[in-house]
């Protein structure tokens, strides 16, 4: 009797969860991750700035229903600060990774189409930028620009194009020897025409996936550089600022100051990572059989 029951319940269980093939589950994951990110952006617009105004009546409160992430020593709501900081990070991440993807696209295509000298130059340039540790390069650039969001965006854009450039260059080199490109060349089309009509369309998936996958790096580096004191100004609600401030209050046992903001940063980064990886699985024909 009991056996029959367990079998029945198992069957029911299976019926409730519809059978997903890989495509479905991948799409589901992408949707879920995108929803998290949309929630963060929407929440940052809905939450009012009053909640991060100084209010000494509410200072040093541990997490509660009214203040899910607690409050800091100035009575500012940590949840609001975190969400606003994260949406700022997301904006900076969009600009920075978009510009580095464009740099990668131009250099990668140029290296593969404009002849040997330019190719040597681009690989040399890639080596140059890979040679400096990212963080040191970021500090140098932030120092040059004088800190602020501009420094972070320029710094991240200047340091993250290298790996994608390599990928795009390899892809273009492969495409260039493809038959349809050879035929087009035989028919007297100009290199620029071929580049735009025959090569660029093939790079669109690489472009998007590269963009999404650069995102987590951009956000992490933005937070790191702000944490070190070179990035966004201390008056802005930024995760890096929140975490570096929380270091001063660490020994007092106010764990919520560092724990929740970092956790949400981690969730954001992971969400972007999972969107990028899953999109790659969907788009990239090389992974289709896996």
């Amino acid at each position, binding site marked *: 009797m009991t056996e029959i029951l367990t079998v029945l319940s198992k069957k029911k269980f299976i019926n409730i969860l519809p059978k997903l093939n890989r495509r479905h589950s991948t799409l589901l994951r992408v949707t879920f991750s995108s929803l998290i990110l949309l929630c963060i952006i929407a929440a940052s617009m809905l939450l009012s700035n009053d909640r991060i105004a100084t209010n000494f009546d509410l200072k040093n409160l541990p997490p509660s229903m009214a203040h899910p992430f607690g409050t800091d020593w100035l009575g500012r709501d940590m949840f609001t600060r975190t969400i606003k900081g994260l949406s700022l990070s997301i904006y900076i991440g969009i600009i920075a990774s978009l510009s580095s993807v464009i740099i990668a696209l131009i250099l990668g295509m140029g290296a593969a189409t404009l002849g040997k000298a330019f190719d040597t130059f681009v690989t040399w340039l890639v080596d*140059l930028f890979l040679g400096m*540790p990212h963080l040191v390069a970021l500090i*140098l650039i932030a*120092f040059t*620009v004088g800190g602020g969001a501009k420094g972070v965006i320029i710094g991240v854009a200047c340091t993250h194009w290298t790996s994608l450039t390599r990928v795009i260059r390899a892809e273009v080199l492969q495409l260039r020897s493809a038959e349809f490109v050879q035929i087009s060349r035989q028919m007297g089309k100009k290199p620029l025409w071929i580049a735009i009509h025959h090569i660029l369309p093939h790079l669109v998936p690489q472009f998007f996936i590269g963009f999404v996958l650069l995102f987590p790096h951009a956000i992490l580096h933005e937070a790191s550089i702000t944490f070190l004191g070179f990035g966004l100004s201390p008056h802005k609600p930024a995760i890096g600022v929140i975490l570096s401030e929380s270091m001063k209050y*660490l020994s007092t046992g106010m764990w919520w100051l560092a724990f929740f903001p970092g956790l949400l940063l981690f969730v954001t980064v992971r969400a972007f990572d999972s969107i990028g990886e899953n999109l790659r699985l969907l788009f990239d024909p090389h992974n289709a059989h896996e």
Partner: protein
Amino acid sequence: MINTSFFKLILMKILRVLSLLMALCFISFFLVSHSPIDPVQAYVGADMTRVGAEQRDQIAKHWGLDKPPVERFLLWGKSILKGDMGTSMIYRSPVSEVIKQRFLASLALMGIAWILSGILGFIMGIIAAMMNGSWIDKIIKWYSLTLASTPTFWLGLLLLMVLSVKFGWFPIGMGVPAGVLAEEVTLANRINHIILPALTLSITGVANIALHTRQKLIDVLESDYILYARAKGESGFKLLLRHGLRNIALPAVTLQFASLSELFGGSVLAEQVFSYPGLGQATVQAGLRGDLPLLLGIVLFSALFVFSGNLIADIIYKLVDPRLKEGKSI
């Protein structure tokens, strides 16, 4: 075995590194000299009211800041070639001295993390690949992917909060105990202070190498000679030891050498969180307080560090991998 083409290749690599370093000198000097942060102002800092215009001019003259950038670059470049990197403004000692001292502290930290994460990551990768598809594999994969998106400094803060503040097992920061003379610091003190930052770096450093090794070993296990070995009745650990290990050890070592750039970046963050007096902390200080000679020196030194890592990786590949010994494929 080692023929002239090998030496030629190494020579070419070294020449390339030299050209990159020279370009780096130029670029970093150009960048730094265009900074809106005035080094004199940064140096004077809070004493602004007590330092007059005359004294500022004197400070500028003392550092040679009154000359035009091109002349300064030539002067600086000349002394760099002689091995003199100038004097650090905040530590008031030669830059090479500061870098040497700080780097030794960082080297201990990075070395521990490098070896620990290399070995652990390698073993985790092997276990995951041997049990491909099992729950252990899934856990290791999930762990590695998750760790790749964890901010290093947040992880450091968490460890600090749990292990130091809550349990009190480790000191909260610094390289040595506070209030103890430099001569009285014991090795045990130093070890006690290095564990947490090294642990932070190792935990995150594992991810890359584990995933890479796992993928390589899975590829190897799918090959025909493994199939043949299995057909002969070999399995498990013996199979791995005889046929798998040699194929995956080399890429792992190379990857580990090539990851020095990330390790350096991670150590900057870890040193900041644990206020460990290493090169990373000096970098941050140099940037925040406008110490140009030190910042330039560290940029060059860190680049040299990364380049040597990459060069070693290349050499190991060329020396050890029999498939590349022909010398024609680069």
